């Protein structure tokens, strides 16, 4: 999302035009370990066990300095579960000492009061806790009975130590109908930030096709989110749609309104103002992207060299409408949108440039009495950040039967 940086009340991870021109990795998302205490059905990295060759403490601390040298303003620690790495507090402290903000994105299963206290003392700024649905819905998705209550407890622990707390939610076939009730719980819990993302068909999620939303369901998702965004804003909850939610249609402004109705989706910003890092030092332009997008490893090259010179990091600034295909190639918004979220498009279609998870597109098909349905034609292999393959079937739109009452 591009905003006017002069507005200092916005989080530092928001980028401005100046950041794009200088190509500053404003927001760095760093998987510091793949070890995890949850077993999420949608986990793109298939986290669980730590990677064989995760960075040593010395390497991690050196990487912090290299990130700071590039002008990053915010480092988000993810996993796996970041707190399962023994030196996570050292990494937080180093990030803060280097002048950057640091947040933790967590499932919260074992984010005890003691751990939060330690992280706060190390300088952690904020915590985002994953809550996908209510009670059993969340537990099932996260693969651990009781994980919903644990997440709520973690949220209370974070608030008790005065840290900013937000909630991250996966939107999929199992959670969509609980979003409204979940928002009430989030507001009551005192949260002010709610980040939502559509479950992407990567890693474990690729193995659970029944969980994935269909393209035509964007006609339900986008109006709902726009409504929740407006309601939430009035009640002090700031809804932040991930880059894989959109695009355009009549709700774009309401959904993405950050103090300015004219803000709209500008396309994928991977490699322009966003950087992803894997626990073994692999550098990517976005944390979710699969291995073909890896620019190199900090064990082989300096971070600046990878960021500025590695060709796989440059795909976004090289992309033009000519690179698009399928519906996206001739779309009204092609030049601005460039097929939306690269991660989502690649995970579904095997290559970027054509993204069926789009509201404008669903509306266009619907106006012609049609809809798109995704059918899995190839399974994922079972590796971290892998994906299967899907085909798009265009079929007649199925209208809900209206039953007259009385």
């Amino acid at each position, binding site marked *: 999302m591009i905003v006017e940086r002069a507005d200092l009340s916005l989080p530092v991870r928001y980028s401005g035009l100046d950041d794009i021109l200088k190509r500053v990795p404003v927001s760095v998302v760093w998987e510091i370990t793949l070890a995890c205490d949850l077993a999420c059905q949608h986990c793109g990295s298939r986290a669980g066990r730590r990677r064989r060759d995760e960075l040593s403490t010395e390497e991690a601390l050196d990487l912090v300095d290299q990130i700071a040298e590039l002008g990053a303003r915010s480092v988000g620690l993810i996993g796996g579960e970041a707190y399962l790495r023994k030196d996570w507090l050292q990494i937080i402290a180093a990030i803060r000492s280097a002048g950057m903000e640091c947040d933790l994105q967590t499932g919260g299963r074992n984010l005890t009061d003691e751990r939060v206290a330690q992280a706060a003392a190390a300088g952690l700024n904020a915590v985002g806790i994953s809550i996908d649905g209510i009670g059993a819905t969340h537990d099932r998705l996260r693969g651990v009975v009781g994980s919903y209550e644990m997440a709520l407890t973690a949220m209370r622990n974070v608030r008790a130590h005065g840290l900013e707390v937000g909630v991250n939610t996966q939107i999929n076939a199992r959670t969509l109908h609980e979003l409204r009730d979940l928002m009430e719980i989030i507001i009551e819990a005192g949260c002010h930030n709610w980040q939502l993302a559509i479950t992407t068909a990567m890693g474990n999620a690729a193995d659970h096709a029944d969980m994935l939303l269909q393209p035509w369901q964007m006609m339900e998702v986008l109006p709902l989110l726009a409504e929740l965004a407006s309601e939430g804003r009035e009640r002090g909850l700031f809804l932040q749609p991930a880059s894989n939610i959109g695009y355009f249609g009549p709700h774009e402004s309401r959904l993405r309104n950050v103090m300015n109705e004219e803000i*709209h989706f500008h396309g994928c910003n991977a490699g*322009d103002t966003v950087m992803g890092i894997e626990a073994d030092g692999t550098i990517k332009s976005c944390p979710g992207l699969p291995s073909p997008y890896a620019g190199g490893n900090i064990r082989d090259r300096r971070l600046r060299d990878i960021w500025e010179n590695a060709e796989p990091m440059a795909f976004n600034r090289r992309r033009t409408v000519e690179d698009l295909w399928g519906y996206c190639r001739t779309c009204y918004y092609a*030049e601005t949108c460039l097929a939306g979220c690269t991660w989502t498009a690649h995970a579904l279609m095997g290559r970027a440039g054509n993204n069926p998870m789009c509201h404008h597109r669903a509306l266009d098909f619907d106006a012609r009495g049609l809809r798109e349905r995704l059918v899995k034609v190839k399974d994922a292999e079972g590796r971290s950040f892998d994906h299967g393959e899907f085909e798009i079937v265009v079929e007649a739109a199925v209208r809900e039967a209206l039953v007259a009452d009385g």
Partner: protein
Amino acid sequence: MAEAGRIPVPLRLCRGCRQFVRIENESCDFCGGDLAALEAAHAEGVAEIRAVTAALRAAMAAKGGGEAGA
């Protein structure tokens, strides 16, 4: 020096149908509305709301001040 990132292609919001349209457009590609006229009407509406809000705030402040002084 790093190569510049991709400069986003901006769009313009139609105040009639809330769709985004090409910035150089004079009319909306979706509803056909006159973008400048719709923008002017919107600005007028916003100004009106601001004036009413300001008047309401002033009235409330005056009432609050009166009570405090009573």
